[in-house]
C-alpha cells in the first residue's frame, strides 16, 4: 500500500462448533427454525435453571487445539462476561477468560509461494447470544433466542499478519482446518464462521504497535480483505493529516465499503468477568487427550504431502484436492475404485467435475456424480472400453441422470472397438480405396496419416480404439 507504513493485523475468529445440542442445554442447534422454537428454559435464562456443559464441545475444542499443536489446558474455567443486552438472556455470557481450554499454538499460511507461521494466542469455548431482529416489528425489536447457547470456539491470533492478503489467507486456512476437523460446518452466510479484525499501522521499522481499531463481525473472505484495506487507508490518511487513531470498535458496512465507529474505548463495557459458580472447572487428563488423538483426522498439510508422494501429484493438484476433506476423500475413492492412474483421476476431479460443480454452484458433498459413479466411468477409460473423448459425453449423462457409466455406454452403444480383426478389415478397405494418398504418404508426406485415421474413425463411427488404429495404420502403410 504505502511504503512508509507497516500494517499489523490480528484476527479473532468465531467458529460455531458442529454439536447437535447447545453448549449448556439439550436444545437443538439446527439453523433456520421458527424463532424461539429451539430455546429451552436454560437458553431463556429462566430463574433457577442451571447450565450443564456439553462434553462434545470440549472434545471439539481439544481436537482443534491438537491440530494447531497447542497446549491443551489440564484445568480451564468458565467465566461470566457481564453486560445487558436484550438478546443475552442471562445478562451475562458464559465464556472463558483467564484460563482458556486451548493455549498457544500456530497455523502456517502460504502467501505468494512463501510460507509464514502465524501464532495463535488462545482458543476458548463460549456460548453465542440470540439475535435481535429490527425489521418488521414497527419500530420495536424482535428477539430470537434460537441461537442463544450455541457453542462457539473463539480463536485469537497473535498480531502477526502484515497485510489484508495474509489475513485472508489465514482466515481461509482456518476455515479449511475447522471443516477438515469436522468441528464446524464453516457456513459463513449462516454466521457459523466469522471474524473480528484488530488493525493498526505504524511507520516502517518502528517496534511499538500503533493504536488499533477492532472491526467487528466480518462474515466473508471478500469483506475481510476490503474492510482491512479500507481501515488501513483510513488510519494512514488520518495520521498523515495530523490526526490520531483512537482505540475503538468499528463496524464494516459492506454496502458502502467503509468502516464506521461503534464505540470508543471510553464507552467500552467493564465486563466484570468472574468464574461461573454454576460450572465446575474443566479437567482434561492424558487419557481423554489420548482418545482424541487416536481419532484425529489427517491434517491438510500432511494430506497434501501424502498426495504429492503417494499419487505423484503436482503442487497445484495436491493443493486443490486437499482444500477440503470431502474433496480429498472423493478423490481417494475414485482412485481406489477406478483402479486408474492417479494423475488421470486428479485431472478428471479437478477438471470436468469441479468445473461442472462450480457452474452449478454446488459443493462436492452435493455432487450429482458420486465418487463411485465417476470411478465407474474412469475405469472404462483405463480398460480402453471408451476413449477419453467419449468419456466426456458419458460424464454429461452421469451428471444429468442416475445411470452408471456402464449402463450409459451400453445404451448408447459407445463401446470402443478393440477387435483388431474388425479394425484391420476396415483399414485394408480404406487403403485399397485411396491408393493416391497411400503413394503420397509413402513418398514422405506424413501429414496424410491424419487423413487415414479420420477415414477409419468415420467408417467405425468413432468407436475404434485410436491407439490400436494408429498402430495398425503405421504397420500397413509402411
Amino acid at each position, binding site marked *: 500500500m504505502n511504503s512508509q507504513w507497516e500494517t499489523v493485523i490480528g484476527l479473532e475468529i468465531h467458529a460455531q462448533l458442529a454439536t447437535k445440542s447447545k453448549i449448556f442445554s439439550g436444545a437443538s442447534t439446527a439453523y433456520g427454525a421458527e424463532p424461539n422454537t429451539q430455546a429451552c*428454559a436454560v437458553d*431463556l*435464562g*429462566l*430463574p*433457577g*435453571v*442451571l*447450565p*450443564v*456443559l456439553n462434553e462434545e464441545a470440549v472434545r471439539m475444542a481439544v481436537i482443534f487445539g491438537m491440530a494447531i499443536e497447542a497446549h491443551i489446558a489440564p484445568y480451564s474455567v468458565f467465566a*461470566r462476561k*457481564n453486560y*445487558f443486552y*436484550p438478546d443475552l*438472556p*442471562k*445478562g*451475562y455470557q458464559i465464556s472463558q477468560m483467564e484460563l482458556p481450554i486451548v493455549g498457544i499454538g500456530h497455523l502456517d499460511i502460504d502467501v505468494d509461494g512463501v510460507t509464514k507461521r502465524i501464532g495463535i494466542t488462545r482458543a476458548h469455548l463460549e456460548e453465542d447470544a440470540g439475535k435481535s431482529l429490527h425489521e418488521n416489528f414497527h419500530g420495536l425489536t424482535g*428477539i430470537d433466542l434460537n441461537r442463544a447457547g450455541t457453542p462457539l470456539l473463539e480463536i485469537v491470533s497473535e498480531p502477526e499478519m502484515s497485510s489484508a492478503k495474509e489475513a485472508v489467507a489465514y482466515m481461509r486456512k482456518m476455515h479449511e482446518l475447522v471443516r477438515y476437523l469436522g468441528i464446524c460446518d464453516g457456513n459463513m452466510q449462516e454466521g457459523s464462521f466469522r471474524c473480528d479484525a484488530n488493525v493498526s499501522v505504524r511507520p516502517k521499522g518502528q517496534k511499538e504497535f500503533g493504536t488499533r481499531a477492532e472491526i467487528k463481525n466480518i462474515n466473508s473472505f471478500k469483506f475481510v480483505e476490503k474492510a482491512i484495506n479500507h481501515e488501513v487507508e483510513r488510519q494512514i490518511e488520518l495520521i498523515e493529516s495530523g490526526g490520531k487513531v483512537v482505540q475503538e470498535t468499528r463496524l464494516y458496512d459492506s454496502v458502502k465499503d467503509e468502516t464506521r465507529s461503534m464505540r470508543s474505548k471510553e464507552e467500552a463495557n*467493564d465486563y*466484570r*468477568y*468472574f468464574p461461573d*459458580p*454454576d*460450572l*465446575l472447572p474443566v479437567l482434561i487428563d492424558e487419557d481423554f487427550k489420548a482418545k482424541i488423538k487416536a481419532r484425529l483426522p489427517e491434517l491438510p498439510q500432511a494430506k497434501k504431502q501424502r498426495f504429492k508422494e503417494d499419487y505423484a501429484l503436482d503442487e497445484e493438484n495436491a493443493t486443490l484436492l486437499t482444500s477440503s476433506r470431502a474433496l480429498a476423500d472423493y478423490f481417494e475413492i475414485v482412485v481406489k475404485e477406478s483402479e486408474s492412474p492417479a494423475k488421470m483421476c486428479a485431472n478428471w476431479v479437478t477438471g470436468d467435475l469441479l468445473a461442472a460443480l462450480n457452474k452449478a454452484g454446488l459443493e462436492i458433498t452435493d455432487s450429482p456424480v458420486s465418487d463411485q459413479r465417476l470411478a465407474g466411468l474412469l475405469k472404462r477409460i483405463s480398460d480402453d472400453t471408451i476413449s477419453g473423448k467419449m468419456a466426456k459425453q458419458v460424464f454429461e449423462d452421469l451428471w444429468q441422470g442416475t445411470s452408471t457409466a456402464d449402463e450409459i455406454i451400453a445404451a448408447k452403444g459407445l463401446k470402443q472397438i478393440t477387435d483388431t480383426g474388425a479394425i484391420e478389415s476396415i483399414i485394408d478397405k480404406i487403403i485399397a480405396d485411396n491408393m493416391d494418398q497411400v503413394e503420397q504418404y509413402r513418398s514422405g508426406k506424413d501429414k496424410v496419416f491424419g487423413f487415414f485415421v479420420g477415414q477409419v474413425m468415420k467408417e467405425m463411427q468413432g468407436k475404434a480404439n485410436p491407439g490400436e488404429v494408429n498402430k495398425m495404420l503405421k504397420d500397413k502403410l509402411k
Partner: protein
Amino acid sequence: MQNKTITELAQGLRSGEFSSVELTSAFLGRIRQYSSLNAYITITEELALQQAKTADARLATGNAELLTGIPMAQKDIFCTEGVKTTCGSKMLDNFIAPYNATVVDKFNSAGAVMLGKLNMDEFAMGSSNETSYYGAVKNPWDVNTVPGGSSGGSAAAVAARLAVCATGTDTGGSIRQPAALCGITGLKPTYGRVSRYGMIAYASSLDQGGPMTRSAEDAAIMLQTMAGFDPKDSTSVDVPVPDYKSGLANSLEGLSIGLPKEFFGEGLNSDVAATLEAAINEYRKLGAKVTEISMPSLKLAIPAYYVIAPAECSANLSRFDGVRFGYRCENPADLTDLYTRSRGEAFGKEVKRRILMGTYALSAGYYDAYYIKAQKIRRLISEDFKKALSEVDVIMGPVTPSTAFGLGEKMDNPIEMYLSDIYTIAINLAGVPAMSVPAGFAKGLPVGLQIIGNYFAEAKLLNIAHQYQQVTDWHTYIPSHFE
C-alpha cells in the same frame, strides 16, 4: 394431630386414624386461622387437596413412602410448575415457572402434599424476613419479633404448626438462623448434597437447600427425599446417599466435640451462652468429650461473604431485566429506560444494595482487591474447618448471637443485621453441613445450638441431634398461641 411428627403421622395415615385429605384440610384451616403470621405467600389449597386425595389412594395400595400424604410447604424460592414462584420479590410477582425444581419433583414423587409457597426475604437476601415484598413474617413465639431469615416463612410455619415440615435454603445461615429463632430443627447440608436446579439462585457457590422440621428424625426423613446427585446441576455431587434414619439411634459415647473459642467470645448474649452451656453439658452426660479449639480465620467470614455473595448475586440477578418474564415498567421510552425502571421499581432496597456491592467488587481495578482476596479468605476458612474436623468429630457453637430481635429493630442498620449471621456464614464458605437444634429458651425466646460436621456427615449430625432430642424436650415446645 398438628403436633405429631412425620413418623407418627405416617402411622396414623396407615392405620386409618385419619386420611391425608383430613390432615391436609386441618393444616389448611390453621393456615387461614393464623394468616396474620404472614408465613405463606401462596396457599395452594386446591392442589393440596388433590395431592392429598392421590396420596390417600396410594396409601391404600400399600405402596406409599414415609412422606406420602404429609402436608408440607415449599420456600417460595423453589420453582413449581403452574404455581407462582415469587422469591419474595415484586420482580417475580407474576412469574409462573414452566418446570419444577428437582427438589419439588422429588417431594411430588414421594407423594408429599404441598400446602403452599412460603414467605422469605427478597431473593433470600436478609436475616429477618423483613425484606420480603409480601411483608414481614412474625415470629410465633412473640409476634413483635422477627422469625429470622431468609427462610423466615418456613421457620414460622413449622413452629406454628402451619405445615408439618418445610424446605428452606441456606446461603449464609438462612435455614439455621430462622430455625434457631423459631425453635425448630434446621439442617444445611453439604454444598452439592441437594440439587439447586430450579432453586432461584442468590449466591450460587453458597446456596444449599435443606429441611426445616420439628425434630431431627423428621429432618432425616426429609433429607432422604431431598438429597442426591442431579445431572441438571453440575455442582451437585455424585456420592451415595446413606440411610439417614438408620444411624439415629447410635450411641454418642466417645464423641469428641470442639468448641471454637472464637464462637464464645464478645458479642454472644450471656443468656444464650448459658443456655448453650447447659446443652453442651447434656452431651457430656451422653458420653461426649468436649475440648476447646481455635479457628482464627472465622473472624474474616463476614467480610469475605459480603464480597463473594453480592458478586455472584450481581450476575445472577441480571436476568431480571423486564425483557422475557417478571416485572416490566409501564411504557418504557427506550432500552435503557426499560432496564433501569423495571429493575429500579421491582427490586427492594437490600437487593439493590447487594447488587451494587457485588458490581463494585467485580469492577476493573477492584477485582483483585475484593473478589480474589475474598476467595483467598474462603480457602483459609475451609482449611480451618478441615483441620478442626480432623481433630474433633463435630464443632458446636451458637447459631445466633441473641434470640429473636424486634421487628424493624435492625432494618436501618445493615451492618448490625449482617452480624446476626456471624456464626453461620463461615460454614457456607467452607461448604460443610451444619444444623440448628432447639436447645432451650432465653427470656421466653428459643435458642438454637449449632452442630457442624465434616463434608457429607449429615447422618452423623442427625444422629447427634436426635440423641439430644431423646433426653431433652426443647424441640416439643409449642408457641402458646398456636397450640
